[in-house]
């Protein structure tokens, strides 16, 4: 059964058809939410809200890429959540502990000069993820859509209701800022170079 047929059936209220689509896209939707929110619970909430909202608003889907449509919904859900958090800056104790743990983990210099280990790679990914959360919301979301999700400037502009010029400058500032964060948090760049030369 192809995607369009599933969407048509789901529109008529066929929940099984819709759930086939959920199964096809839930990892991509969750991944985007997780990369933006950097927190499992928040990413789960955003993902769940996305599929509920998609099911309820299936009639407003006007064709095109269903995946892009879902990613737009989850991006908006993340935006909303980030905005809500700003209104309620008293984060839970867990979140604060999580941040601190993240920082402490990477302040430990690695004495190991050997080849890149799984552990180092894991730490680097976590450090990048933590760095992403330090960016302003617009830069954070633009950077994830571009560099994690590999979307074009045009797609991002449409998704975030702005123009290509703004996407360009948000991305430029976000990348520069993230680079500063990584440099301030240890000898990471050799790892980055290695990663690049490995073609990973």
């Amino acid at each position: 059964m192809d995607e369009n047929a599933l969407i048509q059936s789901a529109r008529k209220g066929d929940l099984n058809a819709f759930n086939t689509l959920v199964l096809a896209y839930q990892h991509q939707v969750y991944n985007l939410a997780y990369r933006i929110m950097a927190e499992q619970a928040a990413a789960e909430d955003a993902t769940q809200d996305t599929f509920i909202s998609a099911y309820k608003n299936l009639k407003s889907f006007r064709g095109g890429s269903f995946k892009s449509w879902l990613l737009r919904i989850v991006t908006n859900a993340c935006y909303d959540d980030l905005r809500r958090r700003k209104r309620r800056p008293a984060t839970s104790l867990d979140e604060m502990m999580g941040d601190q743990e993240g920082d402490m983990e990477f302040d430990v210099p690695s004495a190991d000069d050997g080849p890149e280990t799984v552990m180092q790679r894991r730490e680097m990914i976590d450090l990048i993820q933590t760095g992403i959360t330090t960016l302003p919301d617009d830069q954070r979301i633009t950077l994830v859509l571009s560099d994690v999700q590999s979307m074009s400037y045009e797609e991002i502009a449409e998704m975030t209701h702005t123009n290509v010029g703004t996407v360009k400058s948000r991305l430029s500032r976000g990348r520069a800022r993230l680079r500063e964060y990584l440099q301030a948090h240890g000898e990471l760049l050799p790892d980055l170079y290695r990663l690049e030369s490995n073609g990973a």
Partner: protein
Amino acid sequence: MKPINDHLQAEELFSAYIDNRVTADEKSFVERHTAVCADCHARLQAARSLVAALRAMPVVKAPRSFVLPRKMPREMARQPQRSILAWYPALRLATALAVVAFVLVFAGDLFASSYGSSMNMPPAVPQAALMAPTAIPAMITKEVAVAQATNAPTPTVVAKLMDQTQSADATSAAGAQLSAPQPASALPTATSMLPAAGAAPASSAARSITSTGEVTGARASAPQATPTTEPASDAATAAPANGAAPIDPLRLIEIVLGGLVIILGVATLIVRQRAA
């Protein structure tokens, strides 16, 4: 050395340059500059590495299935959570205000009672204070019952009532262990006073008490108030309370505020738990 403007201009272009989103002029500017400027060359390499690292981030698998159930539970829509969340700031503020008010009144009371003579202090009060851990929950439930039963009680009546219940609690608790009974000076018990609070002035209620401790005068106008503190009241009837206390509205306010602090505090905690 190139002018500082060149470094800044080059760096601003790195991001777009990596994505191949620069004009031909910009492209050649970046390439010419990084060919002669080691700093900017290193920075461009770092920017490239970062983008490569971001692209190499693994896809995080969803930790569970997000398949929609046939009947969506209400909490999946997350409406209740949000409405509860909306109450949180107000609740927190109310709790804080109640605590402040309680502390102020309590401090004022401490000052007043150390200032005033011992005549002002009913003998039961120190006992009540000693019994505080057990007596307070009972007092709060009584207070709630009274608050619900009476629409606009005169402060004096309720104040008297509270003194009665306090001393009743204290004596009933103490009575089990102490064989020395309190002077029974033809005073109303907690049982009789609770319904009376609804309408009858305390004095008339007290006057109409029979030897069995029943209220006759207050019965006619007895409100629907059914005290929720049966055991305490029963015990109080058995051990007549010493309630020759003068009216002390301050004590009542303290108890009301104390109860309010506890109720608001618990509510705030519940909302916070749900919001988390």
